[in-house]
């Protein structure tokens, strides 16, 4: 079975802190994604990566950056967390466009 693992289920941070959300997949997938999920807004794409060290902005990249140094790991970075970044963050991966995306369990981030 494909496994996408997010390092934390719940995270509480303070305004201005630098926050790292980690995601690891075990299926040698080319593509990895970070989404933000908010009630009434569905899932919105923050960034995606189609190869090591490659990244593309999604629909809401402002305030976020990403890092993909190894194929299996995709990190989301909040350089200076703000309260409006309190949300559920979901990581996903797939092998090619149009193929199933496999999701992690999510990280619920609260910024106080």
């Amino acid at each position: 079975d494909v496994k996408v693992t997010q390092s934390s289920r719940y995270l509480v941070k303070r305004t201005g802190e630098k926050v790292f959300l980690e995601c690891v997949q075990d299926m040698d997938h080319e593509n990895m994604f970070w989404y933000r999920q908010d009630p009434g807004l569905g899932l919105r794409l923050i960034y995606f990566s189609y190869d090591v060290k490659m990244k593309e902005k999604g629909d809401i990249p402002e305030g976020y950056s990403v890092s993909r140094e190894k194929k299996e790991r995709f990190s989301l970075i909040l350089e200076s967390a703000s309260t409006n970044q309190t949300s559920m963050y979901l990581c996903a991966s797939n092998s090619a466009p149009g193929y199933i995306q496999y999701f992690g369990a999510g990280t619920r981030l609260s910024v106080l």
Partner: protein
Amino acid sequence: AQTVTQSQPEMSVQEAETVTLSCTYDTSESDYYLFWYKQPPSRQMILVIRQEAYKQQNATENRFSVNFQKAAKSFSLKISDSQLGDAAMYFCAYTPSGNFGNEKLTFGTGTRLTIIP
């Protein structure tokens, strides 16, 4: 830009009955993929069903089937013989086919399905 619309924020159905969740989308592409994903209360999102736009036959997975109307840009999900385990948030999603730059999914806002025992 592509958009996906789910007009039913919440729905409920009696156990063992049938329910249909609606989804419409807007695109100028002729070839694309459509998905229904399920997110149970434990939050791990899983695929329910996938449809390729160039295939006229509606996809089916056990109790789950779709009604894909390409001209109307409609992609509804029918759940037959509803079970308590079907209670979840359901998301419709779209991605164009093709290569580089077309990998992203566009999601609808979701429909929360409640199963009444």
